[in-house]
C-alpha cells in the first residue's frame, strides 16, 4: 500500500475475517504452553486462540471457530526445526526451572543483536540441564529452545553441577573453561541453594571482611562474645591486629592500641588506616 492510500478499516476487517476463515481449513504449527493461549499471525496480525488440551510442546493445530483452536498432533522435529530457523539464534546458559519455567542468562554479553540485562524464560526446553549452553530462537517476544549447543564442552556444565551439589562457594569455584556467564548462573543457583538462612550466617563474616577489604586489610578470623561484641583478627600490610568491635555496626570498642580513650570514634574500616599511621609513626 502506498503512503498516499488511506487505511480502510472495513477492508482490513474483511481481510482478517477472510484470513481467519481460511485458517479454519488449515492445520498450522504453533507452540502450545500450559494454561496459555496460542498465538498465530493472520494476515500480518498476531491473534490469540484459546485451546483445550493437556499437550504442551510444538503442536499441529486447527482453528475450529472464532478465537478457538484444537490440537491435532505433535509437530515433527523437522517441521519445528524449519519453523525455528525463521528466527535469529541466541545462545543462552540455562539456569534452572523456577515455578516450572526454565530461566537462562545470555551466554555472551557481546551479542550486539540483543542486549539482555536480566535472565529470561526459555520455553519448551527439551532434554537439558542447569549450566548447559543451549541454542534458542527469539521470535521477537519469547525465547524458544532449539537444542543443546554440542560445540560447548559438556565437562564445564558437569563441573558446575558437581560444585553446586557440594555447595562450593562461588569464590572457591574451580571449573576450568567456565566463562563469566556460566559463573554468574552458578552464583545465582548457589544463592538459591544456601538461602537466606545461610546468607544471614555468612553476613557477619561478609560485613567484617568487606569492611576490612575496603582499606586493603585481610580478615584472619573472628569470634562472637556475649553482648553483641566480636573479636576480629586481621592483617594490615603483613602485621596482625586483634580488636574488639560491636558486631551490629562494626564500631570499635577496643583497638588494642592506646587512642586516648577515643576508640569509639572509629569503626573497623577506619581503624585500618589508623594502624597504618600508627606503624608509620613508629609507635
Amino acid at each position: 500500500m502506498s503512503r498516499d492510500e488511506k487505511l480502510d478499516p472495513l477492508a482490513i476487517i474483511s481481510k482478517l475475517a477472510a484470513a481467519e476463515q481460511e485458517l479454519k481449513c488449515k492445520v498450522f504449527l504453533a507452540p502450545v504452553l500450559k494454561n496459555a493461549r496460542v498465538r498465530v499471525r493472520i494476515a500480518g496480525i498476531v491473534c490469540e486462540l484459546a485451546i483445550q488440551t493437556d499437550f504442551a510442546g510444538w503442536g499441529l493445530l486447527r482453528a475450529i471457530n472464532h478465537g478457538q483452536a484444537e490440537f491435532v498432533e505433535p509437530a515433527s522435529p523437522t517441521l519445528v526445526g524449519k519453523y525455528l530457523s525463521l528466527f535469529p539464534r541466541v545462545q543462552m546458559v540455562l539456569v534452572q526451572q523456577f515455578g516450572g519455567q526454565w530461566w537462562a542468562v545470555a551466554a555472551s554479553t557481546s551479542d550486539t543483536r540483543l542486549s539482555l540485562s536480566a535472565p529470561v524464560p526459555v520455553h519448551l526446553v527439551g532434554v537439558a540441564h542447569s549450566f548447559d549452553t543451549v541454542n534458542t530462537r527469539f521470535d521477537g517476544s519469547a525465547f524458544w529452545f532449539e537444542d543443546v549447543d554440542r560445540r560447548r564442552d559438556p565437562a564445564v556444565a558437569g563441573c558446575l553441577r558437581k560444585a553446586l551439589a557440594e555447595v562450593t562457594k562461588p569464590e572457591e569455584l574451580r571449573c576450568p573453561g567456565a566463562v563469566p556467564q556460566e559463573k554468574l548462573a552458578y552464583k545465582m543457583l548457589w544463592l538459591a541453594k544456601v538461602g537466606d538462612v545461610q546468607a544471614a550466617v555468612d553476613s557477619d563474616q561478609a560485613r567484617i571482611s568487606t569492611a576490612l577489604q575496603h582499606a586493603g586489610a585481610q580478615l584472619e578470623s573472628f569470634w562472637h562474645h556475649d553482648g553483641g561484641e566480636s573479636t576480629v583478627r586481621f592483617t594490615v600490610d603483613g602485621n596482625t591486629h586483634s580488636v574488639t568491635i560491636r558486631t551490629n555496626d562494626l564500631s570499635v570498642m577496643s583497638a588494642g592500641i592506646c587512642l586516648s580513650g577515643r576508640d569509639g570514634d572509629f569503626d573497623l574500616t577506619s581503624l585500618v588506616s589508623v594502624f597504618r599511621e600508627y606503624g608509620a609513626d613508629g609507635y
Partner: protein
Amino acid sequence: MTNNDARQLYDRATNTEQNQLVLHVRAMGRSRDISLDALDINPSSTDEVIRQAVARFMDVSEAELRGTIIERHENGNLTLRPEAVFG
C-alpha cells in the same frame, strides 16, 4: 525475598560483583559507604573537594568534617575518618 525468583537471584549475584570505588565515611559517630560516582569525585580529588562533596551528600556542614583526615588506599577506595591521637 524468596530463593526461587530468577530475576532477584540475578540482581543479588550481579550486585555483589560490582566493583565500584567507595568512600567510607566515619564521622560524628556514624559510618557510611558512598560510591565515588555518587559523590562525583575520584581518588585524585583534593581533600577539600572530597569534604565538600561529602558534606553536600550527607547534608552536614563542612565545619562538622573539620578535623577529619582522608586516606587513599591502594585499591582506589577512600576513607574519611577522625584524626587519631596516639598515647
